[in-house]
């Protein structure tokens, strides 16, 4: 904290940069405020998702069998694919920040484009998954008019059908609905954050192409990078919680 306090006293040579806002003393202070602001915002985001994680934990411990059955019905291939895509996009985002810091514009723009494409890929795969769930009548409640929750349940002795819900002993359809309700709330909220992130990336891209960023002024890239990584982290937790836990009941 000491260096924060001294930041006014140290006059760096960055007075008068065109991106310096009037109420800051210098670029260093402005960058610091931006980064700090994003971190504080991410704390808010953590608490926002925290409420849903709490609900998830409570109901998972209340209805373990139903949650495992519902979880088994999710498409693990697509989930794992999406995890990979998102990790890769996080990597390209980190590289975009790096290239901005060292002032290499072309690779920076390339990395931003790659990040954006990967982000959109993630959303595309997610949309495919949502559609599958819609086909299987797994959208909870009456969210979709005309298609209320009502999956076909696999009966004992029937051949396995991946459109049918296989209920483990102790699970009920109603509890499975609870899982899907939490699933859609969490992944939906996550997808919303991805969409916002894609918007922010587009904005970065336009500004990069216009040549607004330089090693002196790259705080928007850095700050939006932080946001993007955060969204990645949320998925890192969502993937095992929603797709993986309970697999071993069926396959182990």
């Amino acid at each position, binding site marked *: 904290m000491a260096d924060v306090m001294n930041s006014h006293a140290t006059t760096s040579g960055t007075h008068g940069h065109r991106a310096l806002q009037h109420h800051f003393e210098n670029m260093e202070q402005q960058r610091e405020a931006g980064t700090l602001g994003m971190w504080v915002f991410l704390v808010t985001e*953590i608490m926002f998702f925290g409420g849903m994680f709490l609900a998830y934990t409570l109901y998972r*411990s209340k209805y373990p069998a139903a949650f495992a059955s519902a979880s088994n019905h999710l498409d693990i291939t697509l989930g794992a694919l999406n995890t990979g895509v998102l990790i890769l996009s996080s990597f390209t985002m980190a590289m975009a920040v790096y290239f901005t810091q060292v002032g290499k514009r072309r690779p920076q723009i390339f990395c931003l484009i790659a990040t954006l494409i990967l982000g959109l890929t993630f959303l595309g795969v997610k949309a495919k998954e949502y559609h599958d769930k819609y086909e299987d009548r797994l959208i909870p409640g009456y969210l979709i008019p005309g298609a209320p929750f009502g999956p076909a349940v696999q009966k004992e002795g029937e051949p396995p059908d991946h459109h049918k819900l296989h209920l483990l002993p102790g699970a009920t359809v109603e509890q499975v609905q609870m899982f899907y309700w939490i699933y859609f709330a969490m992944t939906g909220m996550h997808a919303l954050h991805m969409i916002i992130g894609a918007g922010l990336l587009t904005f970065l891209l336009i500004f990069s192409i216009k040549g607004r960023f330089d090693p002196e002024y790259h705080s928007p890239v850095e700050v939006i990078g932080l946001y993007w990584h955060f969204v990645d982290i949320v998925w890192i937790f969502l993937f*095992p919680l929603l797709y993986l836990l309970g697999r071993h009941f069926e396959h182990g």
Partner: protein
Amino acid sequence: MSEHIVPVRVYVTIFLVLLVGTLLTVMAAFYDFPGRLNTIVAMTIATTKATFVVLYFMHVRYSIRLVWVIVASALFWMAIMFALTFSDYWTRDWMRVGY
């Protein structure tokens, strides 16, 4: 908060670690560990991956103490929310006024 430029090699390493972590967690999910170990394994891998992202991709390792404090406080408040809520649910059976 003087700036630190993280070398590319670090980014690549972290990326590979994350991929390996993903692979591990998927594999572990199909293996039936005793008791609650499945959950613990999955969560440990996820937390490790998240920690790498936070430390390197998000540069916290090279940041001022204040950022550490912010990250820690977010986790602390999450812990409060979970611990005190479950202090209710887990102790209800000790004396039943509602069941």
